[in-house]
């Protein structure tokens, strides 16, 4: 079983990486790219098969360590 966690910069936080990637895509001719945000993706291998039991623990880990709630949002799935 795996937790798949996606961490993205909050909308209010400047994301110069995202802006640079957006500009690069535009230079390559990709039209209609409205916005790009560069974040992180984590995969965590979990023991057992009780996804419900893992949810609050992964949520806590995201809040305490894996993301910084001041500047980042996160969401995850366990499957």
């Amino acid at each position, binding site marked *: 079983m795996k937790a798949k966690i996606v961490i993205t*910069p909050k909308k209010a936080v*400047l994301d*110069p*990486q995202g802006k*640079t990637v957006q500009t690069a895509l535009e230079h390559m001719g990709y039209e209609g790219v409205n916005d790009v945000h560069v974040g*992180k993706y984590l995969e965590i291998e979990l023991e057992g098969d009780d996804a419900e039991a893992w949810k609050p623990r992964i949520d806590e880990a995201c809040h305490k*360590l894996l993301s*910084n709630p*001041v*500047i980042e949002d996160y969401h995850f799935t366990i499957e």
Partner: protein
Amino acid sequence: MRFAVLQFPGSNCDQDCVHVLGNVLGQQADYLWHKEESLGNADAVVVPGGFSYGDYLRTGSIAQISPVMNAVKQFANDGGLVIGICNGFQILCETGLLPGALVRNRSLQFRCEQVYLKVPTQNSPFTREIEAGGVIRVPIAHGEGCYFADEESLVRLQSNDQILFRYVTAEGEPTEEANPNGSLLNIAGICNEARNVCGMMPHPERASESILGEDDGLRIFEGMLRHFEGKPVAAEPEPAV
């Protein structure tokens, strides 16, 4: 006065801090490995710059859960003097001892240069030896020094006079050109509400000896020393008639 200078795997300004505090300021300065759970008899803590844990995950994120940081939190909450420089500032924000966070420089470039800092207030142990509104010159060296905090926190920082250092021009103007990393309100350093914990991106320990070019930074450490000694803040000079 006894300073504890923390060492994490990847710290690289620890020796400079110990040199300045010991050989220039003439105080006791000892290294403290991050696995220690006690600060011993330290009177102040320095969280030095560097790349603790290789900046993995986020700058300062792994260091904040080192055993020594529990002791630092306790020490700070009891009123002990703590200064975090560069990566140390990032670590103090991650621990929650200071509000906000440091994110990637707006230019995406690592900036390594001399900057001018305005010191808006003398009301802290770290700035008491610098005249209010004075400008000092200290170097920066960072890739992730763009200070961010939400609107509410920024209002609180301003109304509580917690902004200790702002990037300015040589004339003291907080312009966009003088801001090397995109920090909100040109913030280079702040303190907590209780004013005993300071975080700053610039490196005062690299500007503490005139023979090496600059000694403005020494006044920050002198402020901590004078505060510890219980000396009153130097009176404002009488205005010239």
